[in-house]
């Protein structure tokens, strides 16, 4: 098998219009050597899963500040499974209370990153998860 690059979809589901955090993470992952696809604002779970399938990504990173994470994030996971894309590593970030984060991590999310997580930690987590050192 030839060498390849980690592909990541950075998505903004829901209604909030703040994508500074998403862009910071996207840029950091790019600088780490990953190919990062940014979805733009206001995408529905259906649209994000469609993008993940067409782009053949290894990872979806969702940034959400609107408070509707307990609807939107599990919905992304359900649709991924429906489309046969369970191999895609799911991570999330934004304003998500620890109790919700714990529940999401039980429900298929590899990790929910709290506010202020250094981008390097996110990059390292992704590399680990996708199988860099395996």
């Amino acid at each position, binding site marked *: *098998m030839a060498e*390849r690059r980690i592909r990541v979809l950075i998505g903004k589901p829901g209604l909030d219009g703040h994508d500074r955090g998403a862009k910071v993470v996207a840029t950091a992952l790019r600088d*780490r050597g990953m190919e990062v696809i940014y979805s*733009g604002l206001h995408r529905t779970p259906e649209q994000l899963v469609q993008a993940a399938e067409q782009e053949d990504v290894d990872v979806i990173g969702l940034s959400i500040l609107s408070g509707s994470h307990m609807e939107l994030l599990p919905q992304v996971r359900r649709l991924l499974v429906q489309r046969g894309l369970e191999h895609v590593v799911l991570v999330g970030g934004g304003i998500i209370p620890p109790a919700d984060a714990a529940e999401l991590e039980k429900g298929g999310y590899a990790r929910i990153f709290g506010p202020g997580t250094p981008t390097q930690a996110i990059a390292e987590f992704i590399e680990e998860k996708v199988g860099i050192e395996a």
Partner: protein
Amino acid sequence: MVLATFARRLEPTPEALLEAFRGGAVGALSRAISWAENGHDDVDSVLDALFPAIGQAWRTGFTGPPGAGKSTLVDALVGRYAGDRRSTALLAVDPSSPFSGGALLGDRIRMNQRVLDQGVFVRSMASRGSLGGLARASETACDLLDAFGFQEILVETVGVGQAEVDIAAATDTTVVVLTPASGDGIQAMKAGLMEVADLYVINKADLGPAAALAGEIEAMLDLRDPSRPRPPVLTCSALKGKGLAELVEALDRIRLRDRDSGAMQGRRQRRALSRVRRRIGETLRHRLWTEHGWEQLARQALADGKRPDRVAFDLLQNWWESGPFGQPAPANPAQKPASSPGPSRKQGNG
């Protein structure tokens, strides 16, 4: 480093991938494109099987300076094609970072979601830097989209580096997108950009008069070989939706013309031939350089103070005389004319 072995993602067998691909599974198409990008070992067997299905789609490339409005324009066109019930795929190529090798691919941001919802397939592709490699990966990706059954394949690429030449080589029609404010007219334009076009479109006509630039382009076209078809020069505003119907019409006319005149066939034949040539070059270079240890030999010879060109000639000469194809070359130099096919006599390899 991010170049990984990816033990954890199960790759399908080529047979399973083909079956899913033929069954119309989008996931199989997108995985096949990844295989093409990555030089996966099994991509050639997949392409062998799909080859008879390739050749029905029309491939249109869009290139031009960054910010000219290519993505906006392509998005609008995709919308029109989808509205006409032409099944459409878009390949958006962006440069990889020369420093990290990563890429930030933002072309989906501009895509109108209504269009995406109509079943348009959009794939972002990073150029991954290598000269000519862009053409290979994007051409193979187009082959896959073609075999999957898309009628319209649009390819967007930024006209920097070699990209516009690569894309022109990989498509049936090439559109160069400019704006009224493009530099100081065509004098400032990259030569490559001005040579690859089958059609010019001056976008952002809503921002200012396009007549001056259009006039300059026409004057330049007056100087061209008149036996080649003259590229039309159109103006539009992708943002305001002005001039798009005319653009679609002009593209359709070029397509009909090139189909009937045999130009399309000629272009595709040249493309196939140059692909064979490129593949031979790449494979030979790789085999000799890494598997035959020529890299080591070259390092040694350079360390001994030899001139680089001489190192190359000597390596090729020795290889040729030892019989690169299993049989020693004729020993008697008198029987070997100066125009011998021996690589040692060739000037470069294109």
